[in-house]
């Protein structure tokens, strides 16, 4: 591996990311499975870094999962997207940041299709007026929330309490980065670092002290596949693709995985549990799995947030061995408590996965 070669490619993909003033749009999957990640994103950007990140309760799903499961027409999803953009304009913003990668890819695709086919854009604008009485608008800058954390990575590093370093050996943690397929595979220039060697997560990990691992199936999809997961009978597709990735990364002995797509951490985490329970195979040390994180969780950890405030208790792969490795303190007794110390019982323990 020649690191300099990657640096040359990264230099070719400089994405313009405005410093401040964003209209924030949530992700169906991230808010459902990683609600604390979105809370952490807003807390870091607004309260720790003093940025203006605006959210309105009136925005909705972009319809992306329904669209990529082929259950709504292209015109429908485009009009929903136009509604989101119109809300941005209505609240006085021109920079749009979304939490979801499926949304991000779909926004890129939609903007590109509108650019190429102005008559379609016209039709969508009419649809929007007919259905919502909103004025058509397009964002000046479109970024994914991981682009913003990438942008702020050095400020985050300067406020960090922990580094992605093994406290016993002093060695950088070995980190696998997993990029959502819809981040830049369709439009390499829209992603930080392009499509083949995206830099968005690498930059964070390097800024926070870790070391990135490049393994053969790095670029492969986590296996969501929309309908290939949503229908139980199709889930073999989903787990077999996750399985392929883990078999490929296993020899590199990663300490952790960082992701930027909301779905991927769910699948990479949960399918490890299924593989362990059905085949007895685990990929981490001593019968543990490899813990999988959102980038917000990793940013939160290095900044010293309480792991249970970050929602790490809702992962199926236990995170404690990694917290111990870094030296992040946590109180096991508080893991499953609700607000104000209310005890909520504990999840059952898996048979195989520790």
């Amino acid at each position, binding site marked *: 591996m020649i690191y300099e070669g990657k640096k040359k490619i990264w230099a070719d993909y400089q994405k313009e990311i405005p410093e401040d003033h964003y209209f924030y749009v949530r992700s169906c999957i991230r808010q459902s499975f990683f609600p604390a990640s979105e809370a952490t994103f807003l807390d870091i950007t607004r309260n720790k870094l003093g940025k203006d990140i605006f959210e309105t309760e009136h925005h909705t799903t972009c319809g992306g999962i329904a669209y990529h499961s082929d259950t709504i027409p292209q015109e*429908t999803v485009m009009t929903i997207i136009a509604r989101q953009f119109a809300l941005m304009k209505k609240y006085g913003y021109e920079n749009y940041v979304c939490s979801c990668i499926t949304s991000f890819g779909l926004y890129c695709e939609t903007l590109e299709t509108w650019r190429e086919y102005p008559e379609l854009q016209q039709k969508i604008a009419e649809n*929007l007026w007919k*259905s919502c009485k909103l004025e058509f608008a397009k964002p000046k800058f479109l970024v994914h929330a991981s682009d913003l954390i990438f942008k702020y990575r050095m400020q985050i590093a300067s406020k960090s309490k922990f580094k992605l370093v093994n406290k016993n050996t002093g060695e950088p943690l070995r980190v696998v980065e997993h990029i959502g397929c819809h981040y830049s595979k369709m439009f390499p220039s829209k992603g930080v670092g392009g499509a083949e060697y995206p830099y968005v997560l690498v930059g964070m990990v390097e800024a926070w002290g870790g070391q990135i691992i490049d393994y053969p199936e790095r670029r492969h999809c986590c296996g969501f596949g929309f309908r290939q997961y949503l229908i139980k009978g199709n889930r073999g597709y989903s787990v077999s693709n996750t399985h392929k990735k883990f078999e490929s990364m296993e020899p590199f002995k990663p300490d952790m995985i960082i992701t930027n797509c909301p779905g991927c951490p769910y699948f990479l985490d949960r399918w490890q549990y299924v593989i362990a329970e059905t085949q007895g195979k685990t990929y981490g040390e001593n019968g543990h799995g490899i813990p999988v994180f959102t980038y917000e969780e990793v940013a939160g950890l290095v900044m010293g947030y309480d792991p249970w405030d970050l929602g790490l208790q809702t992962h199926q792969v236990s995170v404690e061995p990694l917290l111990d490795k870094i030296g992040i303190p946590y109180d096991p007794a508080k893991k499953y408590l609700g607000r104000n110390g209310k005890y*909520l019982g504990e999840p059952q323990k898996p048979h195989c996965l520790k």
Partner: protein
Amino acid sequence: MGKLYDRLMQDYRLKEGLNACINCGTCTAICPAAEFYRYDPRRIVDIVQHQDDSQIEELLKSDTIWYCGECLSCVTRCPRNNKAGLIIMALRSLSIQTGFFMESEKGRQMYLLCKDLNSNILNYGYCVYPRTFKYDGHMEAGLVWEWVEKNMDDVYDRLGANLDKEGPGAVRKIPQKDLDELKRIYDVTGATEMLENVKRAGLEKARELGLTEEEYCQKLYSECSPKHFNH
């Protein structure tokens, strides 16, 4: 040039997605579906570019077009700027419009997908909504999800979400006025009509099989013939 091909060409995804295929196989080489299913996206693009309606009709009736996971990894690699994933999306839409989707096992899954996803969107404003994502149907979501489900309000509250409550925040209650706008978008853009057609076809099939709607949904959710697999 055939009539089905003409209809396909009205789809912007086909206009954007089909340049001219050189049959090099870079799409299939990295396709997550190609290793798992009996599936070759290159062949699909080639069939479409031949513009032969009888072959296109066969595709629309087949399981083949439903194997793709829409990851769009194929888009990055094509040396001719084709977008196999988008072509497949256009084929799926046409399969639904023509009713051919009912002729394959994977195509018939549309009934359940349409029902689940769009009831989430129209009732809650989200594609995925925690209260309708059941551990029972998603055991792989883990024992931790079983625990979340049991303690849903407390867990989301603990994690800074705003579950089913007013104002902004994660999994908040989206105001009815906004949900009404989504419904009007569905009406204006053809989604409502499409969903009704899929529903009608599915219920007819259930009747034909002598199944209640619930039994039919259960069948759609779980069934999987071994004929789909590559190995």
